[in-house]
């Protein structure tokens, strides 16, 4: 084996040693079928202000020493500033590194004792194994991709990347390439999920949702392709297309005498804050006769910043254009309640997790009730998401003036199907 450099801080091996290990001389990686675990610690430097400027380094050292005690014959490598890779050649059974990942996560739940200071570290873990991949570098990238997915899901999460699953690293590249075409050729299309008003006893609006039917990979869920669209700058043309599509829907509604039927669209924080956002919207408003239409933008709660002047003023401008604003997935984010006072919001969409089993889950019922009380006090309208059973529905009906959305009333439908229902 070649000689490799060693990481100065931790004394661990580095990337080149990892590649050598994975790509055993003379044999393809698939005959060795290694597993790779990619772990990234969440910003240890955030403790530097409080505990001194080398705190992140001490954390990394502490962390790497602790992990080493859990290892047997795996290769442990420092690959980035805050990231490490653990690789195992020929695991005795597949998924062995998942067990190790569980141990690491358990260890992270214990506070780290750094010279008397107790710190709680968090990390994200991705695992990939080689069945058909032919290079060590690809395998590592795939594990990194899984780690990033874990990071999006929360803290101390583990994501195992299944090569044949729909969303491997290779698939992501393919989707990125196909996305511009899909926006144009109708592979990405729109469905509407009706919103039912208890007081009016009818559907008073609908949420418009994007779907992608990929010709080879099949149905790609929005939680996969929307982040890709954001990453590649395709979210703006997708938003434009959505607005143009909705303008056509309003024309259909108007012909049926349903002028007050409201449509809600998801708006990502990134699109909202984009320099050209307001100009784009104004253009489409004028060109496609979208003015004065009852349109709501839904913003996911966990993307809302705690307080940000530019964000608030953007929301004000959107309101001035005549749109309503809703907080989506309310109750799942980590923002302070203060934003409800400061941001010009019209609707709270209470997350489905609070509606689930509300007829027998006492805690959900109490939380839901307190959200309704708060919304009432603040003059906000409420939409309950994810109503799926009659039992849930009968409890929600007691809250009177709310709007409900869910499979019990209406599943997401193509435009014509929704219009037929109204």
């Amino acid at each position, binding site marked *: 084996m070649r000689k490799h450099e060693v990481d100065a801080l931790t004394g661990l091996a580095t990337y080149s040693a990892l590649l050598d290990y994975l790509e055993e001389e003379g044999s393809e990686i698939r005959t060795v079928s290694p597993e790779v675990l990619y772990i990234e610690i969440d910003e240890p430097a955030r403790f530097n202000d409080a505990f001194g400027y080398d705190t992140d380094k001490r954390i990394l050292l502490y962390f790497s020493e602790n992990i080493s005690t859990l290892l047997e014959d795996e290769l442990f490598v420092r690959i980035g500033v805050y990231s490490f890779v653990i690789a195992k050649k020929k695991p005795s059974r597949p998924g062995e590194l998942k067990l190790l990942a569980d141990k690491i996560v358990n260890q992270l739940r214990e506070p780290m004792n750094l010279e008397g200071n107790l710190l709680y570290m968090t990390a994200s873990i991705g695992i990939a194994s080689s069945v058909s991949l032919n290079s060590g570098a690809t395998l590592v990238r795939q594990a990194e991709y899984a780690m990033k997915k874990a990071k999006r899901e929360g803290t101390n999460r583990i994501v195992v990347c299944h090569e044949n699953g729909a969303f491997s690293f290779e698939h992501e590249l393919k989707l990125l390439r196909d996305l511009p075409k899909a926006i144009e050729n109708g592979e990405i299309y729109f469905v509407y999920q009706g919103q039912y008003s208890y007081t009016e006893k009818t559907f008073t609006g609908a949420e418009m949702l994007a779907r992608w039917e990929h010709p080879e990979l099949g149905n790609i869920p929005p939680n996969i392709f929307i982040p890709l669209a954001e990453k590649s700058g395709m979210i703006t*043309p997708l938003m434009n297309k959505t607005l143009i599509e909705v303008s056509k829907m309003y024309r259909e509604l108007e012909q049926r005498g349903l002028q007050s039927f409201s449509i809600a669209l998801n708006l990502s924080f990134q699109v909202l804050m984009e320099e050209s956002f307001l100009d784009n919207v104004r253009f489409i408003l004028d*060109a496609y006769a979208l003015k004065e239409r009852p349109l709501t933008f839904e913003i996911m709660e966990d993307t809302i910043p705690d307080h940000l002047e530019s964000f608030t003023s953007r929301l004000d401008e959107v309101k001035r254009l005549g749109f309503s604003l809703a907080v989506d997935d309310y109750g799942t984010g980590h923002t302070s309640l203060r934003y409800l006072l400061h941001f010009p919001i019209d609707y709270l969409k209470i997350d489905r997790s609070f509606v689930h089993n509300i007829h027998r889950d006492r805690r959900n019922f109490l939380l839901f009730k307190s959200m309704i009380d708060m919304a009432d006090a603040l003059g906000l309208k409420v939409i309950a998401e994810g109503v799926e059973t009659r039992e849930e529905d009968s409890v929600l009906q007691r809250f009177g003036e709310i709007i409900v959305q869910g499979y019990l009333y209406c599943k997401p439908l193509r435009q014509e199907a929704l219009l037929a229902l109204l």
Partner: protein
Amino acid sequence: MEKKILIVDDVRFNIEFETKLIENIIEETGISMKVDEAHTIEEALKVIDDKNIYDAMIIDMNLPDGSGVEIAKYAREKSSKTRLAALTIYPNEYEKERGYFDLFMKKPIMIGPFKQNFLRLLQIG
């Protein structure tokens, strides 16, 4: 003088979107323009024959009956003054054909860049 524009695209959504953007430019600049449309190479060659000379064309490269380059070649033979823009998702795939066009425009169409490129195509501003 009224500018004559030809848009060649098989996707109705694109033609409508481009036309509305051009209408917006007309409003902003006060320059009068007339927009014709064609959906295939065959249609495009026919309108080029029928309608004398266009000031500018925006040609989608991927048409049902072939490549937009055919239209560019034909338009160039008719008049060296017509300004030609190619519209494509993958501009890199047309390196060899660059010479036939004055400008490459990227799809999906973005509002700001389209307006800017269109003015460049007409050599305005």
